[in-house]
């Protein structure tokens, strides 16, 4: 018994050292000590916790899941195990599982309510419940910790975006970026939302800032290329292409950026060839861009084919709906046009060109009041 007591005491002190190493960021040492601790005492909840978190940091999900499951088995009333399991599931994009575990952590009064709420809201939004996510976030004030506050605003932005409330989403996105400029996902969202809502100069300004911060990140450089394309006088498309080639030389998105540069140079044939290569290699955006080139060159049949491909691959794209709607409208196919343009306005309710096209459609359908409303909206500067 004495030896057992000594062993347990020693295990306890090893655990303390593991904890200290963990807090100091020495994860190698923390892992080694924690392993020692749980070997000596399989019931050392905190040791399993440390090992689980370290495994999660290294994306070793099987290991981290097993460790956290051990924690909740050993100490079912401990909310932290459930919280960490929820986080692990979040990173593995298993949204419903994440929601379950976060909920159980909440039931056990996990102490950091703000953090739990933000993570749970994130999971709710990603699982397709943006309204629920927003309701949860509204139950707390933006946290004081800047990183957590950034996450709060980031999740708010993502949720509002899912609900097509782009003006508010962009504002929340700006808050997130302001509070935590080191998270590229906030930048991606903000730039993409600004492009979608026809605010190209603002999108380019943000993309310029982002490409400076994340010079080797393909997603950032790709958005830089797209934003530059949308601004007529931007001389930055070639630079964006170079940056993207540096970041991901084998990526099919390079063909899209090439195509955008060719478009700027007025070389439509070359642009179409580049977009075609990108489309064949699975870049969804490429079909829309190809369709635009074909439409501008008068090949409406090819444009329709490309837009339909884009629609099939990206059914919730407001831009695709708008382009397809414009095409049908130009050909007098009003029923098809109406389906697409009414879809576009629900997806992009704050975007002038959408309202303008819808106004033209309603005019052709003899719906004078509706037409006037949307044409007015489509002509005023937001």
């Amino acid at each position, binding site marked *: 018994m004495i030896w057992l007591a000594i062993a347990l005491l020693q295990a306890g002190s090893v655990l303390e050292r593991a904890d200290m190493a963990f807090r100091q960021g020495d994860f190698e040492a923390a892992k080694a000590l924690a392993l020692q601790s749980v070997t000596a005492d399989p019931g050392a909840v905190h040791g399993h916790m440390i090992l689980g978190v370290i495994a999660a940091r290294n994306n070793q999900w099987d290991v981290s899941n097993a460790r956290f499951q051990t924690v909740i088995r050993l100490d079912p009333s401990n909310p932290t195990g459930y919280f960490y399991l929820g986080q692990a599931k979040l990173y593995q994009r298993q949204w419903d599982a994440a929601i379950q575990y976060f909920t159980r952590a909440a039931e056990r009064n996990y102490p950091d309510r703000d953090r739990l709420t933000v993570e749970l809201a994130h999971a709710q939004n990603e699982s397709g419940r943006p309204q629920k996510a927003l309701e949860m976030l509204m139950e707390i004030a933006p946290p004081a910790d800047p990183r957590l506050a950034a996450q709060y605003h980031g999740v708010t932005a993502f949720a509002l975006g899912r609900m097509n409330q782009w003006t508010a989403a962009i504002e929340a996105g700006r808050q997130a970026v302001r509070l935590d400029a080191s998270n590229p996902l906030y930048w991606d969202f903000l730039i993409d939302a600004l492009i979608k809502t*026809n605010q*190209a*100069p603002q999108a380019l300004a943000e993309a310029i800032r982002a490409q400076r911060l994340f*010079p080797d990140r393909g997603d950032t450089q790709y958005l830089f290329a797209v934003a530059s394309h949308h*601004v007529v*006088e931007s*001389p*930055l498309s*070639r630079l964006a292409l170079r940056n993207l080639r540096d970041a991901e030389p084998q990526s099919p998105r390079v063909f899209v950026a090439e195509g955008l540069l060719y478009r700027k140079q007025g070389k439509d044939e070359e642009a179409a060839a580049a977009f075609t290569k990108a489309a064949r290699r699975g870049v969804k955006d490429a079909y829309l861009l190809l369709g635009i080139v074909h439409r501008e060159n008068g090949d409406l049949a090819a444009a329709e084919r490309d837009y339909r491909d884009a629609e099939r691959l990206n059914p919730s794209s407001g831009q695709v709906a708008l382009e397809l709607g414009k095409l049908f409208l130009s050909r007098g196919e009003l029923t098809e046009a109406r389906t697409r343009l009414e879809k576009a306005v629900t997806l992009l309710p704050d975007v002038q060109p959408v309202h303008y096209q819808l106004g033209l459609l309603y005019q052709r359908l003899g719906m004078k009041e509706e037409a006037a409303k949307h044409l007015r909206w489509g002509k005023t500067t937001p």
Partner: protein
Amino acid sequence: MATRVSYKWHSKLPGDGVTRRLLLTGAAAGVLQAQQPETSGFDLSLLDDDVVPNDLFFVREHYPQPAGLSSAGWRVRIGGAVAEPFDLVYDELTATPSPRRLAATIECAENPVDGGLVSHAEWTGCSLGALLEKARVRSGAKFVRLTGADGFSRCLPIEKAMHADTILAHGMNGERLPASHGFPVRAIVPGWYGMDSVKWLKQVEAVDGADPGDRYLRSERSLLTGVRPAGPVREGCVKSAFSRPLDGAILSSRRFTIRGVAWAGQNRVRQVEVSVDGGKSWRTGRLASPPRPYAWVQWTFDWMIGRVGSYELMVRAADDAGRAQPEARPSNRADGFELNSYQTVRVVVS
């Protein structure tokens, strides 16, 4: 000195209001007037070609941009201590059959170590020396005073004014000079700091002595003598800069092409070296093209990144006249000019 970096972009969709081109046209028609002097830097992360597009070229004004800028009737008076003063009319300048083309990097004398008050362009104009020869400068004249329509003036030593590469420019990167860069006519004094390349040029005068109120003076401090002037700021120093990554960048790959520029005033850049360990060791960067006098040269360095963590990257250059950048600002310098010590950028690799 904190400067703002300005981007004046406009969308391709109609109804977005005044475009940049309209603004420029308005400037040519003489309606554009700034309320206060503008200073905005070039964002080096946007460096692509050697030449910086006109819209991105840095702007530094000493006084507000003049009102009523128009090429119609614009004249530059060539006079002072000359036998045959004359007016150079804008249309004559632009109609020169063999215009001088000059690739020159211009840097503000107060450009910080990591600053963007530096850019490169290809200028079109005519030789200032040829104009002074036409005017027959008198033998006692030692300087040439250049005066802009904003009231700013600089005195150049006669030798520099007469140098074959000192020009009066009317074109920039193949376009007419923009208003913010000196339209209709400006001086380009290559290899010297930007204040000598006087904008909105109205007067070229041969004079006997330099202006007494020159603020562009080096000054040094010592315990014995306090602060005293140590000569005019003129020729550009050798200097180098990163274009990517910049300070605060977050990298995720294990191989990254570091890029930047280096320049050396009237000389050629001889060598650029990069350190990825805060100056403990240095390796030579690759110059992208043969170095030229007056012009910056781009350089690259392939960085194989061993581990995640924080890094201090540094760059230094040397020129073919034996000059090299100092590691730190000499402690006895008491002015804010010629800031050309090594640039350091701190990045995180995650």
